[in-house]
């Protein structure tokens, strides 16, 4: 999978010098990266690395404090209602917990974007949603309610919903979190199959190394809100950056103590 993807078509996601705060705490610090057409970019990092936050900013759920996020070359914080709508129709998102609507069947969930955004014939919409359920191996589960599905099935149903409008960018938050290894590996294969068939750009956020190495064209390694490195699977594997190595070997890193900083943290606000 470690093909050189540097010149693999134009970038569809561009993040430029993104800085974000939660209250007064800096969460993301000067993040710059891009994702190209037909590429699988894995954003990897431990918990608290800011990877989920980065995803939320890419989706336009928050407005950047500094810097910008561009989708299809357009700064998303400057888009008007209609333009945003256009952009949103071209992206699909599978959330970590699936975020399926519990009051609807699986099939209705998958059809929802079609129902809201297109004027297709009812029959066409049904066929389209069933096709996507076939793609994710959930055929026959159309009439079940989300609560009746297992964890892996929920993720696949969410994937089907994300794909139903044939997006040009697919965002997938933690595909393998909470799944047993076999199911997680199946999901990885599915992601690769989808990319090969459709040339969709895929952004995967994960903390699972195995999964990241399996599917990624390039990997962005995040740590404490900063980018440690961006590179191909091999480049990341062979990196001699200590933090990256630590992350890979999963040793809980000996936290370097900046005495000044540490004292400040412990005593801040106390009086």
């Amino acid at each position, binding site marked *: 999978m470690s093909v050189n993807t540097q010149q693999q078509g134009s970038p569809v996601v561009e993040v430029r010098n993104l800085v974000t705060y939660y209250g007064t705490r800096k969460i993301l610090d000067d993040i710059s990266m891009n994702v190209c057409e037909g590429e699988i970019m894995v954003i990897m990092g431990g918990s608290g690395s800011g990877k989920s936050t980065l995803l939320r900013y890419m989706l336009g759920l928050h407005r950047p404090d500094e810097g910008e996020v561009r989708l299809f070359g357009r700064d998303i914080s400057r888009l008007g209602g209609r333009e945003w709508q256009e952009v949103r129709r071209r992206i699909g998102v599978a959330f970590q917990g699936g975020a399926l609507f519990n009051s609807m069947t699986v099939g209705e969930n998958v059809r929802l974007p079609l129902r809201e955004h297109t*004027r297709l014939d009812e029959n*066409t919409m049904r066929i389209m949603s069933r096709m996507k359920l076939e793609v994710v191996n959930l055929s026959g589960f159309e009439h079940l309610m989300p609560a009746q599905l297992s964890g892996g099935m929920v993720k696949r149903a969410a994937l089907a919903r994300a794909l139903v409008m044939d997006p040009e960018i697919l965002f997938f938050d933690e595909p393998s979190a909470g799944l047993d290894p076999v199911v997680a590996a199946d999901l990885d294969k599915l992601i690769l199959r989808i990319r090969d068939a459709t040339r969709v750009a895929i952004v995967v956020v994960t903390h699972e190394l195995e999964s990241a190495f399996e599917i990624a064209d390039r990997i962005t390694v995040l740590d404490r809100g900063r980018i440690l490195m961006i590179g191909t699977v091999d480049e990341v594997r062979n990196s001699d950056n200590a933090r990256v190595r630590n992350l890979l070997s999963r040793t809980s890193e000996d936290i370097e103590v900046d005495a000044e900083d540490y004292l400040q943290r412990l005593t801040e606000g106390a009086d």
Partner: protein
Amino acid sequence: MYPVEEKQGFSVVCLHGEVDLSNSPEARRTILNCLKKLRHVMVDLSAVEYIDSSGVASLVEGFQYARSNNLEFGLIGVSEAAMGVLRLARLDQVFHIYPSLDDRLGNGSRG
């Protein structure tokens, strides 16, 4: 409107360009209209640059309609891009797919 040619007992529907959400209803109507006239239908995809799920869904509907009316329905000149989309949903194993209409005729009768 997509052009329809009558050839050797088939209505050949020529889809072209990008078949997506905005024009797949048109494709669907064209295909179903031919079938409603009880014609055997071949859909020519050779000029298709891109076909999305709604386009493929229209083909599925046509195929289903043809089968329930004992008509023949096939795809010809399926481009690599279109094939990828069909393969993803494993529909390449469902449709009758021929390189060209001549290949279909050479194959003997079917349907």
